[in-house]
């Protein structure tokens, strides 16, 4: 590092700029902000004292990151965006380069300098819009804010007077990348930083285990509500910004000694899950520390739901959301990894989520502690997308956009996880991302049904080809002198052998044309005398009309006699005709011919259950979407 040493213009003490590129240094002796102005130094006066934050880092801490030269923390910037303060640490590498290490809610983000592409001006940026940052990719703007330069320590790479308003935009990119566009105090972006979330282990930070451990197990604090005097237990004291008193409902500012922000006399809604409850879900042992009731109002009707803030020192915060007895475990999602998934849809981690509903969500009641400056009446535009058992949710305010992923849980799972007494409230209707009990069964049952249908068809063709056998065939000329229906026209066939039990098909083919031939028939078992009667008619008509040529009927017809035992048979055929004299007919007799209508009946039987399942699955989905912005059936 190419340093620079000078005297503090305020107190004359030596000030050392370890980074040659640093432009501001807080004097260790008098606390003045000293700025480099070319070859001269100027003092901006004394910098406000550091705001206490739960940071485990400190100036002078060193480490190794991703094969880069060793770094040292040489500067600390504290920014206040009105609802909280966070720290940004200046990492000075041995090579003379530098980067930011942002710290918020116990998470660390390494942000390295990147070439600044043309980007919109600050006033033109909106949360949720996408910005092409060049090689790093296209990012989503997640936050557009103005922060105040609250305090600093060590040196900083820019020359800005303490107390100045600094404009910035945070962005989220593919592959869990983060970026910050730094606008300084102007409209145009001055710098771009790109990076990702890192752990202290990845940073190779040394000498902090005791500090980190102390933070991870930060003990709960027992306090009293200044409004009602009720005891308050703050379970995440190093993270909490707002506290809703569980006794009187007053909203307190935990960053200002529990200053009362809003006074209430009672808690209008009691959480189902008592605050302080601990439960094991999704690989963590969570403590419910906050509860809020939110709602959307559609056409004058208020639709409330409940959200529980869960806290686990090493994993941070999660949410448990309950609406009409349906529960969701909600985790944050990197907005840059959410892609447009077509019309009214989003795609996240290869899964497509369909738009379910949107609206303006309002915070109605808060109880317990929260890591941000929540307030009753806070509003956000929301959009929910579902792909059971998941729900992808977007919340947007003018300053920021947040995405989260909810996983559906039945109430009894929550009750078991948190060891609650009694039973969960009975769920109403179908939850937006409630898994359908039918969808899995539908696929399995249909696969079995199709397999059954395939087997059925195979058996049918097999019987037709290999089991069916022709047992008799005869061409029968008709005597033109014999009248229709006369005994002279009656035919008795030669005896024929039916080798196996089964049915008998009698096929008659006659050259009828705009005429008909009717055969009154019977087969007689020569051994037993049993007679099985049947009849068969062949009729064929054709002509032309205004639509062209038409035909009706066929020159071939079949009759079946069922369940014949094997034996020697004779057939009797008594013909009648009309519309013209048929010169004769061909008779073919086959045994054991499978019937196609029976295949159809069997197929219908096989499909009954799958079709019923599809119907039930359809009804389930219809119920689900009835509560959405896209109901399948409307009252109109």
């Amino acid at each position, binding site marked *: 590092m190419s340093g620079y040493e000078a005297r503090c213009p305020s107190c004359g003490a030596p000030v050392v700029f370890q980074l040659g590129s640093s432009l501001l240094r807080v004097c260790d002796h008098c606390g003045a902000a000293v700025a480099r102005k070319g070859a001269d130094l100027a003092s901006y006066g004394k910098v406000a004292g550091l705001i206490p934050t739960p940071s485990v880092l400190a100036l002078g801490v060193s480490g190794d990151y991703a094969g880069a030269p060793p770094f040292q923390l040489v500067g600390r910037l504290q920014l206040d965006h009105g609802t909280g303060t966070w720290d940004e640490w200046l990492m000075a590498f041995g090579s003379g380069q530098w980067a930011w290490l942002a710290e918020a809610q116990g998470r660390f983000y390494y942000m390295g300098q990147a070439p600044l592409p043309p980007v919109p001006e600050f006033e033109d940026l909106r949360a949720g819009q996408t910005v092409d940052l060049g090689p790093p990719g296209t990012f989503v703007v997640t936050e557009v804010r103005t922060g105040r330069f609250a305090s600093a320590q060590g040196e900083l790479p820019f020359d800005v007077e303490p107390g100045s308003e600094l404009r910035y935009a945070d962005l989220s990119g593919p592959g869990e990348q983060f970026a910050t566009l730094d606008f300084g105090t102007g409209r145009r972006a001055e710098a771009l930083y790109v990076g990702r979330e890192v752990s202290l282990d990845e940073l190779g930070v040394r000498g902090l285990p005791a500090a980190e451990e102390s933070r991870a197990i930060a003990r709960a604090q027992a306090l009293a509500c200044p409004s009602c005097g009720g005891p308050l237990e703050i379970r995440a004291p190093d993270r909490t910004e707002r506290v809703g008193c569980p006794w009187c409902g007053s909203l307190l500012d935990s960053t200002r000694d529990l200053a009362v922000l809003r006074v209430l006399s009672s808690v209008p809604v009691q959480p189902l899950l008592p605050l302080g409850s601990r439960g094991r879900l999704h690989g963590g042992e969570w403590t419910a520390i906050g509860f809020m009731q939110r709602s959307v109002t559609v056409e004058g009707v208020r639709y409330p739901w409940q959200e529980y803030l869960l806290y686990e020192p090493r994993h941070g915060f999660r949410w448990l959301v309950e609406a009409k007895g349906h529960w969701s475990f909600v985790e944050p999602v990197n907005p840059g990894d959410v892609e447009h998934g077509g019309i009214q849809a989003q795609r996240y981690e290869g899964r497509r989520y369909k738009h379910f509903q949107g609206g303006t969500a309002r915070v109605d009641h808060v109880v317990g502690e929260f890591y941000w400056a929540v307030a009753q009446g806070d509003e956000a535009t929301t959009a929910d997308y579902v792909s059971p058992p998941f729900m992808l949710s977007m919340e947007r305010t003018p300053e920021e956009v947040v995405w989260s992923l909810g996983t559906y849980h039945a109430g009894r799972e929550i009750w078991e996880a948190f060891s609650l007494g009694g039973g969960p409230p009975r769920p109403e209707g179908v939850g937006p991302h409630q898994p359908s009990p039918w969808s899995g*069964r539908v696929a*399995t*049952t249909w696969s*079995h*049904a199709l*397999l*059954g249908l395939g*087997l*059925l068809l195979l*058996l*049918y063709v097999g*019987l037709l080809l290999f*089991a069916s056998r022709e047992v008799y065939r005869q061409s029968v000329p008709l005597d033109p002198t014999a009248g229709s*229906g006369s*005994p002279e026209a*009656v035919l*008795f066939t030669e005896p024929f052998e039916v080798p196996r*039990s*089964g*049915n*008998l098909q009698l096929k008659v083919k006659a050259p009828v044309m705009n005429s008909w031939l*009717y055969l*009154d028939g*019977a087969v*007689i078992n*020569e051994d037993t*005398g*049993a*007679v*099985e*009667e*049947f*009849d068969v*008619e062949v009729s064929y008509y054709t002509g032309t009309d205004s639509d062209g040529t038409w035909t009706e009927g066929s020159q071939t017809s079949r009759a*079946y*006699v*069922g*369940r*014949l035992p094997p034996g020697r048979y*004779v057939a*009797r055929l*008594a013909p*009648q005709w009309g519309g013209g004299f048929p010169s004769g007919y061909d008779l073919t007799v086959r045994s*054991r011919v*499978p*019937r196609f*209508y*029976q*295949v159809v*009946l*069997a197929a219908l*039987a*096989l499909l009954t*259950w799958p079709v019923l399942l599809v119907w039930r699955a359809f009804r389930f989905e219809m119920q689900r979407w009835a509560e959405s912005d896209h109901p399948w059936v409307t009252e109109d």
Partner: protein
Amino acid sequence: MKHVYRVFVAGVLGLWALSAWSGWEIGPRKRGFLPASVRQSPGGYRSYNYWRGGK
């Protein structure tokens, strides 16, 4: 449930195969009987007054 349906599929296929094999038909059967004396006399079939009906 899928096991129940598998059994059902097997049952339907079995029933169908049985009906196809045995020649089972839906609907009433028109059955009769010719005495042995008729069957054994030459030309007995043709002249026997069992035959009747027509279109």
